[in-house]
């Protein structure tokens, strides 16, 4: 699905050390992969590289097995850290954006797309807010709309940059439940940046830990919990053990 081989990137030539150095990663179709790393370790940068907003200094990015050298834009769905809803468009119109830019014949009729969006808005608890402007929504609601907009793109590979970061505990839990229930029918591949370890374990098949110093190399962790998962399994002893393991890996580096 996606493979990175020895990816290196730095924002400016003169920059002493690159943000990302020698990163290799392999993502299979249908996998859910979380990426964890300290702030500034280059997670968002990695996503921009995959999405095609930035060009890596040296490396090959393969999506769907094909080598993407030039224009990867429009191949993956990307949800940035900020919600970036257009303030002059209603919730519905914001969600229609990906459809507007889609020039493939498969994009479907506007009416169908709207009906689909309305259904999903309902599911996200935003049914009433369809015709609201973003500035009339709370931070959490805006984030949900942005997530919805990402799903609407219809791409197979989703890059989610802290999609649930701004959600409250309850809504987040509900989103987990919903996502887990839906997961097997979605047939999507997800790369997921999060700072919530439980969330990472709960949702992922694998977790990549980005190093805080670019030259230390990524760590990989397999989450061998059975699927389908349930959203309240976080008191499961296996789950707790995984979590302790993950925390240890993280903190042994940070606090000696």
């Amino acid at each position, binding site marked *: 699905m996606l493979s990175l081989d020895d990816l290196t990137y730095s924002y400016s030539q003169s920059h002493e050390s690159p943000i990302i150095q020698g990163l290799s990663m392999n993502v299979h179709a249908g996998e859910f992969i979380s990426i964890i790393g300290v702030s500034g370790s280059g997670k968002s940068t990695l996503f921009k590289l995959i999405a095609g907003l930035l060009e890596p200094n040296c490396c090959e990015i393969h999506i769907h097995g094909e080598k993407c050298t030039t224009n990867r834009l429009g191949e993956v769905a*990307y949800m940035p850290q900020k919600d970036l809803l257009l*303030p002059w468009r209603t919730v519905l119109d914001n969600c229609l954006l990906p459809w507007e*830019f889609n*020039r493939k014949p498969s994009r479907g009729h506007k009416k169908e797309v709207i009906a689909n969006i309305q259904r999903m808005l309902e599911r996200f608890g935003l049914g009433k807010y369809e015709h609201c*402007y973003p500035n009339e929504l709370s931070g959490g609601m805006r984030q949900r709309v942005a997530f919805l907009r990402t799903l609407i793109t219809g791409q197979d590979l989703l890059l989610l940059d802290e999609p649930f970061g701004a959600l409250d505990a309850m809504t987040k839990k509900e989103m987990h439940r919903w996502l887990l229930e839906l997961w097997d029918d979605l047939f999507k591949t997800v790369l997921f940046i999060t700072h919530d370890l439980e969330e990472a374990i709960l949702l992922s098949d694998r977790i990549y830990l980005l190093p805080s110093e670019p030259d230390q190399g990524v760590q990989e962790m397999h989450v061998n919990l059975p699927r389908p998962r349930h959203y309240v399994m976080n008191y499961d002893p296996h789950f707790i053990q995984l979590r302790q393991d993950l925390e240890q890996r993280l903190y042994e580096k940070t606090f000696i």
Partner: protein
Amino acid sequence: MRRPLYKQWVHDYGWFVLLIPLLLVSWQSVVTLGWVPSFIIPAPTSIVLALFEDSHLLLGQHLIATLEEVTLGFLLSVIGGVMLAVGMHIFRPIEKALYPFLIISQTIPLIALSPIFIMWFGYTIWSKVAIVFLTAFFPIVVSTYDGLKKGDGDYTELLLTMGAKRWDIFRTIEIPMALPSFFSGLKLSIVYCVVGATIGEWLGGTEGLGYFSRRMSSNMHTDAMFASILLLSLLGISLFITIVIIEKQLLKRRGSTK
């Protein structure tokens, strides 16, 4: 806000409306007391009287002529200005090459070039339209261009990942972002348009409020001259208000950009 419309209006323009009669009364008394000779500043009453006396000519002929020049010149400068601004925005070399000329064009007093305009356009409406165009053009280009530059990098990146093309980004991000700034330019520009038309009419011609005012001034009919200036001013304000109303209509239904 469910405030009744008229209350909102009183709240907004009450002070202005209060100030107006105060000013008029003091103006009137300054003139009637003879502190200022009436051939330099006529009393408001005699201006209004002159307006009525010549109302047929002023309203029926000259106002219409000026309005025509202003409308034509303004529309042309909006079209031309927006096109140039967009061109400069999309293709940087255009900006680099033309921006200095734009500024140069504004530093040249237009009247000094009057023979050139007449040579090119003759004594038609087009020589006046050309001058209106040149006065109104600059604010539109500058503000539209500045507005387009505001386009936010983050939004652009997001749209790019959705497969948006240059044109999509222009349409969905840059135009809406530029609108408020564009309207600031329009508001400046429409005000300058009226002055531009007046100057244009001085170059020659046989109608228009600027022509009339100059004729009256050369005959020292100061009150009739002020009557035409009053009309010019009212024309400018009405056009300005029209733009404001259009702006409100267009922008009211969107959330704040912040």
